């Protein structure tokens, strides 16, 4: 067994068990922590597959920015295991069975797929030089459009999250005083 295979199985076990922890833990803060661990395991897979730039971006963007945003919102709302809403046992069982059936259906579909041999030698596809060259030649238009998407998401988040102005002039005067 090569080192690649050992690392693959270890990282897969971490990813799957932490993903189960996300959906099974009662406390939302624990869920966020498990999800961060899952993202770290997936980043490990990226490094294993010579996608170094994506591994770094995954840690910075997902584990660093997005999950901190989640954690911030959860702590802002003061959510914990006591106020966590729980579905009935029957609905939870139905969810697990539906997810399991989806798993089995797709598994039956891809079971007969011809296994492609992984080339385990190091490549430089995932390096930032190569990715940048492709991004700014072939995919320059989607890149620009995604910047517009980001701008609109930023404005949208501000507009949605803004406190509503009170129409009542007395309330406004009171707040000024």
């Amino acid at each position, binding site marked *: 067994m090569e080192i690649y295979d050992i690392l693959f199985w270890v990282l897969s076990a971490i990813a*799957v068990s932490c993903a189960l922890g996300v959906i099974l833990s009662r406390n939302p803060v624990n869920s966020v922590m498990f999800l961060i661990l899952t993202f770290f395991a997936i980043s490990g897979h990226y490094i294993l597959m010579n996608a170094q730039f994506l591994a770094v971006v995954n840690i910075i963007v997902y584990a660093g920015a997005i999950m901190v*945003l989640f954690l911030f*919102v959860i702590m802002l709302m003061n959510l914990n295991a006591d106020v966590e809403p729980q579905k009935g046992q029957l609905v939870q069982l139905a969810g697990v069975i539906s997810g399991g059936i989806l798993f089995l259906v797709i598994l039956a579909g891809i079971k007969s797929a011809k296994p492609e041999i992984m080339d385990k030698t190091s490549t430089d596809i*995932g390096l930032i030089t190569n*990715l940048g060259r*492709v991004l700014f030649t072939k995919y320059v238009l989607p890149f620009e459009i995604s910047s517009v998407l980001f701008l609109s998401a930023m404005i949208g*988040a501000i507009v949605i999250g803004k406190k509503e102005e009170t129409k009542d002039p007395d309330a406004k005067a009171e707040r000024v005083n």
Partner: protein
Amino acid sequence: MPVNSTHYLFLSLLLFSIGIMGALMRRNAIIIFMCIELMLNAVNLLLVAFSKIYGDADAQLFVFFIMVVAAAEVAVGLAIIVMMYRKVHSVDINILNRLKH
């Protein structure tokens, strides 16, 4: 048996199914959101695996764009959840089934 594409297919499928199960099982809107992130990451993992197998950089660029869209989605979605929490003081999705308050 050395690791090949089938292993990555199974791993991604397993992570995706766990995400689906979580989205169906939980009532907390934030946890459902996190399960959607998990599903997006399962797909990202598969794209990178096939990028490695076929030696193609395009798939990694797609992962990059998925991350961009996910970040924008999280910003807007969390703003909506915070707004909903201000109105009804709960993140329980069962309260939202009436669409009026």
